């Protein structure tokens, strides 16, 4: 991790009322690498990504993007930086076809406000090709007729189509079978290979060890550590998630 990170969070905190969801967390994501974010339920993973996405802006701390300090106060800010989040529920309209979903809200139009269907279809095919999504029969199928893995692929393709630099995937394999998990993991690797910074949130350590370059562990809203995947084991990560050393223990009076 010698080069400059694409995204760097320094000492970010967020509390909801009396609950300190995350406190002074540091986090980095590098171009061309997959950074996994793990932690038990309530460790602050969701709060962290929602802060990056601008949904719940951080209370304090600094955010650097491409080495420059930035502020992210709304989802529009993060989208402008090139940060896209693929949420667990994917947010696809089942009744619309693949092209319509990929361009939803950003349709191309020609004269008379007419949708440029041919242009959008072409661009959708090119994006899917660049991600080597090969199992799709046609981009004119409604999303309802696709498998879970294919839907995940469409949601990812939708996210990366807009010159995005950082893609955050929230539990992309949670609801998938073996073969489809395989497809999505391949897709995650390809995203990094295509030059994007990828943040992967998952409960499945097996998946993480397969695709991640580094693993950041959160516990009770604090950093426990960042591990290089090649130099650690699943046991180490589980230990860090459940018993990692905390800088301060919530509820205890600071010495």
């Amino acid at each position: 991790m010698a080069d400059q990170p694409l995204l760097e969070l320094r000492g970010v905190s967020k509390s909801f009322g009396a609950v300190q969801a995350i406190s002074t967390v540091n986090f980095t994501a590098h171009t061309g690498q997959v950074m996994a974010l793990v932690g038990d339920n309530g460790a602050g993973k969701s709060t962290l990504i929602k802060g990056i996405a601008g949904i719940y802006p951080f209370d304090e701390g600094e955010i650097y993007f491409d080495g420059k300090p930035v502020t992210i106060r709304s989802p529009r800010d993060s989208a402008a930086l090139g940060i896209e989040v693929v949420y667990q529920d994917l947010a696809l309209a089942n009744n619309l076809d693949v092209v319509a979903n990929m361009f939803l809200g950003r349709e191309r139009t020609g004269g008379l406000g007419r949708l440029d269907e041919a242009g959008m279809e072409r661009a959708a095919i090119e994006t899917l090709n660049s991600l080597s999504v090969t199992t799709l029969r046609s981009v004119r199928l409604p999303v309802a007729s696709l498998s879970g893995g294919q839907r995940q692929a469409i949601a990812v393709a939708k996210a990366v189509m807009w010159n995005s630099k950082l893609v955050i995937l929230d539990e992309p394999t949670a609801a998938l079978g073996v073969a489809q998990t395989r497809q999505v993991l391949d897709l995650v690797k390809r995203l990094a290979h295509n030059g994007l910074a990828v943040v992967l949130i998952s409960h499945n350590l097996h998946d993480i060890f397969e695709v991640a370059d580094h693993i950041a562990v959160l516990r009770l809203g604090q950093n426990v550590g960042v591990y290089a995947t090649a130099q650690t084991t699943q046991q180490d990560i589980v230990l860090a998630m459940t018993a990692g050393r905390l800088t301060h223990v919530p509820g205890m009076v600071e010495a």
Partner: protein
Amino acid sequence: MSTTKSAPAENALLASQAQLSVGDYASNYFRRVRAGDLGALPIVVGLVIIATIFQTQNENFLTARNFVNLIVQMAGITTIAIGLVYVLLLGEIDLSVGYVSAVAGVTMTLLLKGGLHPLSFVIWILGLFGIDPATLESLNFQLPPLPWFGAIPLALLVAALIGILHGSIITRFQLPAFIVTLAGLRAWNGVVLILVGEGGTIVLQDKVAIGIANTYLPAVWGWIVTALMVLLYALAQFAQIRTRRRSNLAHTPIFLVLLQVLFLAVVAAAAVYITTQDRGVPVIGLILIILLAGFTYLATSTRFGRYVYAVGGNREAARRAGIQVDRIRVYVFMISSLMAGCGGLILAARLRSVATDAGGGNLVLNSIAAAVIGGTSLFGGSGRVVSALLGALVVASVENGMGLLGLSSGVKFIITGLVLLVAVLVDAISRRGRAQSGIA
């Protein structure tokens, strides 16, 4: 996908862009039908059954005269149903369309007649508080009679504003459309009663306004206009093929498009021929086709239409995509009321008058039934504008046929109810088939 010419085998998506043959299309179609994606098939079968039954009972059913009557009779519900298709696409409902149509009809009629008392509401309300209306009436403020090109747009504007009001209340206070438009149903009914007033009927005298539903094109013009419409359709189809070819995308085989154009031409020619045996092509029929084409374009080829489908399919996804969901909903309720208004003008023109019972009866139910029978889902996100026409054809045929047979109202209602039930059953069963085979 048998006739792939030069597609690289390693990429299925590129391969899918290879041109499909007519045979592929045919086999795809039969596969879809077997899987339960019936399209317009049940409507066609239903219409054949309806025609057979009524023709065997009464030989006047399949006559040129009755065909022309049918077009005029179905115009009102078709127009109202076009607006309802948009509401149903959102997964919502608009129960107020019947009386909103009547409000537009009365407004137009009164404006044409002149003398509409703009203060009549104020007077009526003050009357409730015991103030003598005579003091205000003595002001004797009267509107001059407006020409048709003033009265018709104003009536439609009133209808559109009513829709904006409904939509704003529904979105602002997050109320169910069912309740808000139910309230509208009653309230606008009251407005109609007050506007029509003591007499019970206002006669429509303007020639143009009556002409909406009572003008017929001479045979020559009927043929020319129909030929132009078929030509336009063909041009649009081939323009689409050309742009898809330019982008190197798969397109419908030209043979199939020619077949479609030919089919349309034959149907249109048959319809024109039959009408020329009677009074000629009703102008209202052309208006219907223009409305259907316009609203189909809006639904399928514009951002707005795309957003309507998206909001109906997954409101949360639409919201996250940056679509202003509530604004879309208000526009859709505006369209619904506007089209109800159009329908109201057509109905007023057909009856040459507006009465206190305008917009009542089974107008709302018939219009909703038309949209649903035509294949628009009640659950949002799925349906086509043309389903308004197909469904209205069924509903109007049944009504027309039962009228010819002289059936009593009770029997008519029962049969209309059963037709709706059968249509929804066919849809539900085919939907199950589609779900099982993953066509959605």
